[in-house]
């Protein structure tokens, strides 16, 4: 699952790139997760309005 790092120059993104999909899953997650917080806020707002 985890393969040796092969990038020419080490960098933060290269370091996250540790094997199949590690980097891209990380980026997708940090983009999507905060939507939970937006969801909760909006739910509260709708409840208050109703």
């Amino acid at each position, binding site marked *: 699952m985890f393969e040796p790092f092969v990038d020419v120059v080490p960098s933060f993104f290269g370091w996250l790139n540790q094997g199949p999909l590690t980097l891209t899953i990380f980026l997708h997650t940090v983009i999507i997760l905060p939507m939970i917080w937006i*969801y909760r806020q*909006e739910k509260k707002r709708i409840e208050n309005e109703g």
Partner: protein
Amino acid sequence: MAKRSVWSDNRFWQRSAAWVTGFAAVLLIWLTFDTSAQISMGTDADLKNGVTKRVPGPTVINYKITYEMDTKRGHEIPVIGEKELFFGRDDYSEEEAGALLHLGKLGSQVKNCMDCHTLLGNGAYYAPDLTKAWLDPAWGPEGSLQAMTGKETKEEAMAEFLQHPSQYPTHERMMPNLGITAEEAKGLVSFLKHMSSIDTNGFPRNFGKIQGAVHGK
């Protein structure tokens, strides 16, 4: 009245769109800083000290370039070897080589190369890809293209072809005469040699390794 769902709420989606767009843009900018540092051009000192750069400095024209399989990375990479004569010299200074590369890069744009050829795989598909053209065996000592021009070296053969392309038809589809001068041709050949030294993560695969695979039987 039934409670409204957040999932069908415009404000929720508007805020989500703003967040996703903004954060993706921030990530792209961050990645751009990281990548820009990695693809900045190397120097003559880097070449002399054996420092590997994804995009080597212009004085890479003083060296022999090959395209070798790297077992650790699992694909071919350009390898910069010993000194090699380029138009009879192997001691171009950083300024001289930089000026040649500048002339060649400008030349590649003012003659609209990308509207027939591909460079790094981008452009038009009417003529061969030029990413590793410098390493093409056809331009080498045994190659048909070098023989066709009657020149002694690869760089002189390429420069001769570029100046008088329609004198040397290689195919029914010919390169037109674009008014390329001798100096511009020299610049273009150093641009091509420099481009072949760029680390393109193994593109194109198997370049020049299999000859006559189709018609060779």
